[in-house]
């Protein structure tokens, strides 16, 4: 925005801190909240489930975005963090501690410790080496989870009862829809605030050039580790949510492809942008369903044979196209479109804008 120039300045500290600053944004945000609140009255269970899945994916993508988008540390191990969260929950539930008030803090703790451990190599390794290090950690975590699953006695997984909070039981599509959307909104708020806090700015400095960051007094080791810990705590909590939401935990759900999906989300959405993470999460979640519908529309007979190859192919192709043609991702497209409408018929902001 600033690159467009023009006189449109904030004159008070409050205005600078406000997250929704103009009337148009307030109205749009209000409309979005109302739309999300009343959606269960109009939409089918399938649509609600899709939105829930997108909200769940958004939590994971926002967490990964803190690490990769803001702090610039590549992680191929986020499916491992998810698995750690889900299996911590499963282990506690197996021992009779079913309350989310016990499992969620415990999950956060495990996630934090794991994040610290996985983050350690990032103090020495960079780029490809770090990516492969996190990939190795992913396999180690999955091995531990698989071992635990095998020990549980020939089970294919763990069954998790729906969580209770006081008299409230989260069960059914509508309850989970509200729970996941509210939690995704909270995580979004957390990430947006982290991003503009001291930590967020330190992370961005490290991402851009760690030597320069250190030279202006940023404790690089501390902030790299804190990025890993924030990211892994939120991802592990998302794993716990996954366990409760699905009611079933199994190693097969956390393959390496899940980690790739999350990376795809933040790249397609736009690296380093919270809005981008949400958009990317929705995009990657909905893409398979769109392809399903398209293939079924073209030829219903062929659908069952071609859906899987078509999904993989389209997924890879889109990733490549985004990297080549739109490095800023969906959020870049959104910003261009928005500015075009704001400024039409001009190309730049007028000097004296009426707000």
């Amino acid at each position, binding site marked *: 925005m600033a690159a467009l120039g023009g006189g449109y300045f904030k004159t008070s500290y409050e205005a600078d801190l406000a997250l929704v600053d103009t009337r148009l944004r307030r109205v749009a945000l209000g409309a979005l909240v109302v739309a999300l609140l009343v959606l269960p009255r109009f939409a089918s269970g399938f649509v609600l489930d899709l939105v829930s899945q997108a909200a769940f994916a958004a939590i994971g993508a926002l967490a990964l975005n803190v690490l990769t988008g803001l702090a610039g540390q590549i992680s191929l191990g986020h499916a491992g963090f998810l698995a750690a969260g889900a299996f911590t929950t499963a282990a506690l539930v197996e021992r009779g501690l079913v309350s989310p008030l016990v499992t969620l803090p415990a999950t956060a703790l495990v996630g934090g410790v794991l994040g610290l451990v996985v983050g350690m190599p990032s103090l020495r390794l960079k780029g490809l080496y770090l990516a492969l290090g996190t990939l190795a950690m992913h396999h180690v975590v999955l091995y531990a989870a698989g071992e635990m699953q095998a020990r549980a006695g020939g089970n294919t997984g763990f069954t998790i009862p729906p969580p209770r909070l006081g008299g409230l039981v989260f069960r059914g599509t509508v309850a989970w829809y509200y729970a996941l959307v509210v939690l995704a909104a909270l995580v979004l708020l957390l990430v947006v605030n982290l991003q503009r806090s001291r930590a967020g700015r330190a992370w961005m400095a490290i991402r851009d050039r760690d030597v320069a960051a250190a030279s202006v007094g940023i404790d690089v*080791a501390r902030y790299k580790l804190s990025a890993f810990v924030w990211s892994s705590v939120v991802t592990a909590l998302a794993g716990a949510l996954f366990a409760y939401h699905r009611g079933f935990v199994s190693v097969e759900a956390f393959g390496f492809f899940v980690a790739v999906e999350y990376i795809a989300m933040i790249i397609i959405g736009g690296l380093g942008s919270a809005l981008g993470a949400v958009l990317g999460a929705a995009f990657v979640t909905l893409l398979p369903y769109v392809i399903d519908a398209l293939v079924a529309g073209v030829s219903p007979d062929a659908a069952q044979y071609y859906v899987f190859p078509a999904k993989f192919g389209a997924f890879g192709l889109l990733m490549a196209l985004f990297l080549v043609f739109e490095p800023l991702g969906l959020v870049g497209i959104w910003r261009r479109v928005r500015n075009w409408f704001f400024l039409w018929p001009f190309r730049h902001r007028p000097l004296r804008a009426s707000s």
Partner: protein
Amino acid sequence: MGAGGLRGRAGGDDLFEQRLRAFAVALVGGLDSLGGVVPAALLVAAVEVASVRWGNPLLSDVSPFLCLLVMLLVRPWGLFGTKEELERV
């Protein structure tokens, strides 16, 4: 990502994961060393077979990555790669 997700059916994912161990071999040998690949592959395979023989099959799936982790900790440049000065923060 659930029933409609992008994950392949049984088998597809396994094949995918199989290929990942090539990264482990390349890194253990040293990324810039072509000749290092052969001994590294032998070493990683030997560890894998040993873990099947004396450990358990689940462990053998991760053994290439354990080799990778150990190598990253001890000699990040690999067995035969060009030695680099480590950066420490």
